[in-house]
């Protein structure tokens, strides 16, 4: 059955740590085979042991207290766990190479690009410096790095995220390894760049005949790149098989639920299936089925102390008693059909907008010379006009650096605007937030609140939850007594789905999703009218993201909140937004109803952005990526700022049509020829 020779065999591997909280069984009995030329995706939420697995294979653990109570990692019948550190050095980077999530952290900031790439060749292949440099240049060319000669002698900090990751890949591939381990290689990148990088990894794998282990939490990426999938939960493999089987007919309840929690662009808009609870810390893993407490389908046997084996079912292997052929678990609960949200009312904008942005500009001066004279501006937010209505969600999307977060913070006056107006409508009056005096601004703050991306950074670790939520209340409702405030804090905590007594605890005791709920409680206790959600769910696992998105949806319906949802995740946009504004280099390039934009985008940029999102659907292929990076905002391209990357312009140009206006004249935002959307393009 096996066409390819096996290159790596992991057998019943365990990696345990001694920690102050007890024994952490981070990897606990993992077995898999990796064949030459194939890609195995390892998926699962954070805390499931994916990275520890990769690190174990690479033997990158330095700290004491790590043990392997059982298991083997056989590379060409050589057990890597038995090798001495020196012997392992000869394998690492030569035969097995790794790329990491954060390319800046994986590159040495004081080494030039060519020295970084040349190092493994000099070290392992005893290459001369010249030949190593020559090979490095070839690699950069193969990886599609523009002007590789120049890049060779620069330092990593001058490169964009996508370019850094290319350099990291070049380093990993320098010695033509047999196995490439990629640990979330595209998680820190924009979707457009992600598509480029995935394509590259795929191509390099084909040409070198490597085997790849791809660690990711993005099931769309898995679908487009992987041959086989292994789903991990709490240190164990709970399902593995061919990608198409696992993704389209998942067997394990966890895999099923994980897939249902992913917000997708296409298909019906449905209430996301969230998974109750969260992954336990590795020190609290039980002996029996570790998913039983979140399963909902679990029978009495699941809570016993014997873990399910990997049972075969079809082409898959599943660690669930339901598939125990000798004694299958009967489950009473029938599969809950996923609820569909009432096809969301396409609200015509009724009534007054809660917030009216008029020609808003936030320019940051670029200073140079000893006298710090202003030589130019970074137009982070450039001439933005938008209306936000009560009870509606406006999504701001775009690649990183397009100015969407700056816009959010400008509205709150956390950053000062250069010009324009932001009219906030309260019960009594209309106020321009950008011009009003500080005292009045302070009273208006209760009307608009913000939720940040990283729930670990947005709560002061020294404050109890009560103090955190109380802070705004003390300012905006000073007449309340302590008892009344405490009651309200308790009520609000319940509203966001946390028990009342949460208030006496401290942020570090909570998981990411719970912390995000605390941040939401801090905001909504002031009864705001507008909530700015700055990538509010990006740092969360999909199952937790689904919980938070559902909560936000519920709160909006109940409280009539208006949301400005800043995100790069278009699946989330589809789920939560009524309107979408697509930003590119500080400007809105397309605006319209969410369904129109996602299904019939007019602007070539929007089209590419949407096409770059990896989807979980049959036959999904890696998209043709959008070329290049977002240009430097200090010196934006002339005319239409998108023209250097624009596929539409290129295709028109190749057909001999006149595209001179693209580079000569900046297009206006005007109604598109298609639907009601506004679009900033000469041709759309």
């Amino acid at each position, binding site marked *: 059955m096996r066409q390819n020779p096996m290159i790596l065999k992991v057998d019943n591997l365990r990696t345990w740590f001694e920690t102050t909280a007890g024994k952490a069984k981070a990897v606990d009995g993992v077995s898999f085979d990796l064949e030459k030329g194939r890609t195995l995706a390892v998926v699962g939420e954070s805390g499931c042991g994916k990275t520890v697995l990769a690190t174990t294979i690479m033997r990158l653990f330095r700290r004491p207290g790590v043990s392997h109570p059982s298991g083997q990692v056989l590379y060409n019948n050589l057990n890597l766990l038995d090798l001495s550190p020196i012997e392992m050095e000869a394998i690492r980077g030569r035969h097995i190479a790794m790329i990491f999530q954060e390319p800046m952290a994986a590159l040495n900031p004081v080494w030039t690009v060519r020295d970084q790439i040349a190092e493994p060749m000099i070290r392992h292949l005893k290459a001369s410096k010249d030949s190593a440099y020559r090979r490095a240049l070839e690699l950069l060319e193969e990886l599609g790095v523009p002007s590789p000669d120049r890049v060779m002698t620069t330092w990593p900090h001058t490169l964009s995220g996508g370019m850094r990751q290319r350099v990291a890949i070049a380093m990993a591939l320098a010695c033509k390894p047999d196995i490439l381990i990629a640990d979330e290689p595209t998680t820190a990148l924009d979707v457009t760049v992600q598509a480029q990088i995935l394509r590259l990894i795929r191509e390099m794998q084909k040409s070198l005949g490597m085997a790849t282990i791809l660690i990711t939490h993005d099931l769309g990426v898995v679908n487009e790149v992987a041959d086989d999938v292994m789903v991990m939960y709490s240190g164990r493999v709970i399902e593995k098989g061919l990608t198409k089987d696992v993704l389209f007919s998942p067997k394990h309840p966890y895999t099923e639920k994980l897939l249902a929690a992913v917000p997708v662009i296409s298909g019906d808009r449905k209430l996301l299936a969230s998974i109750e609870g969260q992954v336990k810390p590795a020190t609290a893993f039980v002996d029996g089925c570790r998913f039983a407490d979140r399963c909902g389908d679990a029978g009495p046997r699941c809570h016993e102390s014997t873990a399910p084996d990997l049972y075969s079912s079809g082409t898959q292997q599943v660690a669930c008693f339901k598939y125990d052929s000798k004694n299958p678990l009967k489950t009473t609960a029938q599969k809950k059909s996923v609820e569909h949200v009432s096809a969301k009312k396409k609200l015509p904008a009724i009534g007054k907008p809660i917030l009216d942005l008029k020609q808003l500009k936030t320019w940051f001066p670029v200073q140079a010379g000893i006298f710090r004279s202003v030589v130019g501006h970074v137009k982070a937010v450039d001439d933005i006009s938008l209306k936000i209505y009560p009870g509606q969600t406006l999504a701001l999307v775009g690649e990183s650096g397009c100015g969407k977060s700056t816009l959010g*913070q400008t509205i*709150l006056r*956390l950053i000062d605007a250069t010009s324009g107006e932001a009219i906030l409508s309260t019960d009594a009056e209309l106020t321009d937030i950008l011009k009003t005096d500080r005292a009045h*601004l*302070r*009273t208006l*703050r*209760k009307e*608009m*609140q*913000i939720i*940040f*991306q*990283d729930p670990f*950074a*947005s*709560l*002061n*670790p*020294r*404050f*109890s939850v009560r103090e955190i939520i109380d*802070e*705004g209340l*003390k*300012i*905006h409702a*000073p007449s309340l007594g*302590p008892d009344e405030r405490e009651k309200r804090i308790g009520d609000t905590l319940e509203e966001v789905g946390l028990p009342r007594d949460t208030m006496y605890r*401290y942020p*570090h005791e909570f998981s990411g999703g719970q912390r995000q709920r605390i*941040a939401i409680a*801090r905001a909504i206790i*002031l009864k705001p009218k507008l909530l700015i959600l700055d990538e509010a769910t990006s740092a969360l696992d999909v199952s937790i993201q689904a919980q938070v998105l559902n909560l936000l949806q519920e709160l909006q319906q109940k409280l009539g909140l208006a949301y400005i949802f800043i995100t790069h995740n278009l699946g989330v946009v589809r789920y939560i937004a009524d309107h979408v504004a697509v930003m590119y280099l500080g400007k809105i390039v397309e605006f319209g109803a969410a369904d129109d934009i996602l299904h019939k985008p007019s602007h070539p940029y929007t089209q590419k952005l949407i096409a770059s999102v990896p989807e979980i659907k049959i036959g999904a292929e890696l998209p043709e990526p959008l070329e290049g990076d977002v240009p430097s905002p200090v010196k934006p391209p002339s005319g239409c700022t998108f023209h250097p990357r624009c596929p539409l312009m290129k295709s028109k140009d190749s057909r001999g049509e006149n595209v001179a206006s693209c580079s000569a004249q900046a297009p206006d935002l005007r109604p598109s020829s298609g639907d009601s959307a506004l679009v900033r393009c000469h041709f759309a």
Partner: protein
Amino acid sequence: MTLEKPKHRISPETRRKLLAFKRQRMGYYSSIVLLILIVISMASEVISNSQPLVVRYQGQWFYPIVHTYSDKTFGGIFDTPADYHDPDTKKELSAEGNFAIWPINRWDYKTINPNPGLQHPSPPSSENFLGTDDRGRDLLARLLYGIRISVGFGVAGVLIYTIIGIIIGAIQGYFGGWVDMIIQRVIEIWDSLPYIYMLIILASLFEPGLGILLLLLALFNWTRVQDYVRIDFFKARNLDYVKAAKALGVSDVGIMMRHILPNALTNIIIRLPFAVIGTIEALVSLDYLGFGVQSPTPSIGELFKQAQSHLDAWWLLLFTGGTLLVLTLLVTNIGFTILDTLDPRRNG
């Protein structure tokens, strides 16, 4: 301001750090020993004094330690303050029915041993436990009082300049921009002045005393604190929870005090013990050079100077050096323990 409920629970973060500090034996015991030493030196008057604590004389109680009595009271001729080491007075007090209760050490820092048979500096004896200095003053008493002044000076000096440094650094870091630019340029000029020479020049202009030395020290040292408070505030003002507080309408002062300062404190606290040692040693050096406090103020630095000119008087060097060594070791020990417990880079 509304009052919080009076349940001031220590935050678990703080408790964890306190426990971690306690676990480090060396630092824990050092801090206990230092504490005892400080308590003893604070109580120097009761432990080492030329006046008896209580005197019973002709059926009456006297308290010379708190009250100055005339020599006439105890049968003298002149109306001068009583000298309890005077042989005549001693005789009176030991007469039938009279007695005096003395402190452990019968000398204070300035009383000269009147015994004409002694040549000063005199070696340790049953009268002067650690010997005397070159003017016949008790060495133990001078060291005891000297510790008090040194530690007090060190702590007070560091506190003053730390507070100045926090205020200025906080303003610079939090507001940034022009405010920071201007203050930073002024500081650069100020910092380029040679500190020790400036101290010497200024100390010779004014009548040297502890107060003026403290002021000069603070003036030239606050920039050490300002430096990293500024950086900490600069980093912290972009933290999400600081932005969130701003969005809630918390005032600038509120954000600085409640949200940022507690985080900056770590960096301040881990440097405090070493700063105190530095300040103590600065005083010792100034005293040694003769620009510090003036006689008869007890001073470790001045004792070092005596030890240098009386090389044969081993007790001067041994005990003075020993005192400074023990003091430095204790505080340094505590400093490193605090560093170990608080510095996130050390227990990563």
